[in-house]
C-alpha cells in the first residue's frame, strides 16, 4: 500500500509552480495531501510529478480584501476553523469545517484542496456553492481568472480547473452583520464522508430573515442551491413553523447513479430533515422540532 514512484518539486513562487505543472502531463498539485495521498497510497492515482506548493510564501493567507474573505491554497482547515476573521466574514465555512474529518487531518488538509478534490458528498463544496465562492486560478500563461463556484464543480472528483493551472485561493463574500450559520449532515459513522450534507447561512435583520443561503451535497454530481427553501424563509420571523415550511420546500435533483452511500429514496426522504437541522442550528432554534411541526414524523426523531 505505497505510492507508485513520482518526481517531486517544491517551488517557492507561483510562477515556478506553473512551470513545474506544465513540465509533465498529469502533474498534480500537493497542498495538504489529505485527499491526494490516500489515493497515491492506494495507487488509484499515479501522477508522474507532484508539485508541492507548501513553501510558496503568502499562499496560506486568511484575509479580508475587497469585501471578500480570501482563503489561500495552503491555509489549513484547522486554522480556518478557529479563525475569528472567517467566523465573522463567512460563518458557514468554520461551521462546516467542524464536520470535516478530524483534528489530525485538519492540521494538514486545506480548504482549497478539499474543494479541488470535489468529493460529491463532501462538506466544503456545498459551502462554496451556498456562498457564491470564487476560485482564483492562475493559468499556465500566468493570467489570473476567477471561476465562480457555480461553474467550478464538474463530474464527481472533477473540476473545471484548466490543465496546468493553479488555484491560489478561494474567496467568499463578507456576510452582513447578524449572519449566522448552521451545518448538518447524515453519515454512516461520525466524521465519515456524509451521505448528504446541508449548509445554511442566514442573516436576520430586525427579527426577520433578510438573506438565506442554503446548499446540499451528496445528492447529485454537484452541490445544489436550495432556492425554494431560501425563498420560503425570506422575510419571515424564524420559528419552528417557518423552518418546517422551508424544510418541506427543499427539493433537489437526486442522482440515483451517484456512487452514494445510501439509496436515492433515502436521500430524498431525509433531505428536509437535514435542511431543518442546519437551519435550526443557524437560528438557534431547537434542533428537534415539536411533533406538530415535524418535517417527517418517521425520520425527524
Amino acid at each position: 500500500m505505497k505510492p507508485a514512484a513520482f518526481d517531486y518539486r517544491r517551488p517557492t513562487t507561483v510562477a515556478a509552480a506553473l512551470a513545474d505543472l506544465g513540465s509533465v502531463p498529469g502533474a498534480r498539485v500537493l497542498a495538504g495531501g489529505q485527499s491526494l495521498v490516500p489515493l497515491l497510497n492506494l495507487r488509484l492515482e499515479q501522477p508522474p510529478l507532484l508539485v508541492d506548493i507548501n513553501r510558496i510564501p503568502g499562499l496560506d493567507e486568511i484575509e479580508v480584501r475587497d469585501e471578500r474573505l480570501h482563503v489561500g491554497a495552503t491555509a489549513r482547515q484547522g486554522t480556518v476553523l478557529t479563525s475569528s476573521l472567517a467566523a465573522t466574514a463567512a460563518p458557514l465555512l468554520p461551521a462546516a469545517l467542524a464536520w470535516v474529518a478530524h483534528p489530525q487531518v485538519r492540521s494538514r488538509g486545506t480548504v482549497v484542496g478539499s474543494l479541488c478534490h470535489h468529493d460529491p458528498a463532501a462538506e466544503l463544496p456545498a459551502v462554496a456553492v451556498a456562498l457564491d465562492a470564487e476560485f482564483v486560478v492562475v493559468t499556465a500563461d500566468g493570467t489570473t481568472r476567477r471561476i465562480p463556484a457555480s461553474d467550478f464543480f464538474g463530474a464527481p472528483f472533477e473540476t473545471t480547473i484548466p490543465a496546468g493551472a493553479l488555484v491560489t485561493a478561494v474567496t467568499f463574500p463578507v456576510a452582513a452583520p447578524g449572519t449566522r450559520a448552521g451545518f448538518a449532515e447524515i453519515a454512516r459513522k461520525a466524521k465519515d464522508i456524509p451521505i448528504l450534507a446541508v449548509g445554511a447561512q442566514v442573516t436576520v435583520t430586525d427579527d426577520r430573515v433578510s438573506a438565506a443561503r442554503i446548499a446540499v451535497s451528496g445528492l447529485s454530481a454537484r452541490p445544489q442551491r436550495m432556492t425554494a427553501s431560501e425563498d420560503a424563509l425570506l422575510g419571515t420571523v424564524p420559528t419552528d413553523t417557518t423552518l418546517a415550511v422551508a424544510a418541506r420546500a427543499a427539493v433537489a435533483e437526486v442522482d440515483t447513479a451517484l456512487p452514494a452511500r445510501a439509496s436515492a429514496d433515502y436521500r430524498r426522504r431525509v433531505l428536509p430533515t437535514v435542511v431543518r437541522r442546519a437551519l435550526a442550528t443557524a437560528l438557534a432554534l431547537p434542533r428537534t422540532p415539536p411533533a406538530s411541526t415535524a418535517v417527517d414524523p418517521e425520520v425527524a426523531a
Partner: protein
Amino acid sequence: MTLAPGRAAGTRIPPVPIAVRVNGVSHEAAVAPRLLLSDFLRDELGLTGTHVGCGHGTCGACTVILDGEPVRSCLTLAAQVDECTVTTVEGLSPDGELTPVQQAFQDNHGMQCGFCTPGFVCSLTALLAADPEPSDEAITDTLDGHLCRCTGYQNIVKAARQAAGRPVAPEDSR
C-alpha cells in the same frame, strides 16, 4: 546521519535531501519522493513505535506530532518534513519516565493490544500542549480521529480526562 536513497528502484527519480529533527536528534537524509513519513520513521530511523494500520489516513495509528500538530504520518511525505520537527511516541519522554498521558493510559487500562496506542498518546499530548484544559468536546473530537478495536474507547476517554486533570468518571455519564 546519511541514509541510502529510498525505494524508487528502477527509476531515475532523484532523491530529495531533507534535514529533519526527530525526537530531538537531527537527521539528514536523501529520500525517494514517494517515501511516506511513517516508513521513513520506521524503516530508515528504526522508530517502530509509530504503527501503520490502514495506510490511508483512516485509523490514526500512525499519528505523530509535526511542528506541534498531530498529523497522519502515512499521509505525509518524508520529503515534506524538510526543516521540520517531528515527535514520535519514543520521543515523548526522553528520560524514560511515563508522561502524564502515558501514565493515565496505564492507570485506566486505556489499551489492550496496544497497536493504536502510540497514535492516541501522540494526539492527546498535542491536544494538551495546545489546550491544557480541553473540553469534553475537544477530547472527543481528538479521540474521534483514532480507531481502537479492543477497548470500546471508554477507558481511553477516562485516560484522556485524567490526563486533562479532570474527574475520570463524570457525574453526567457519557
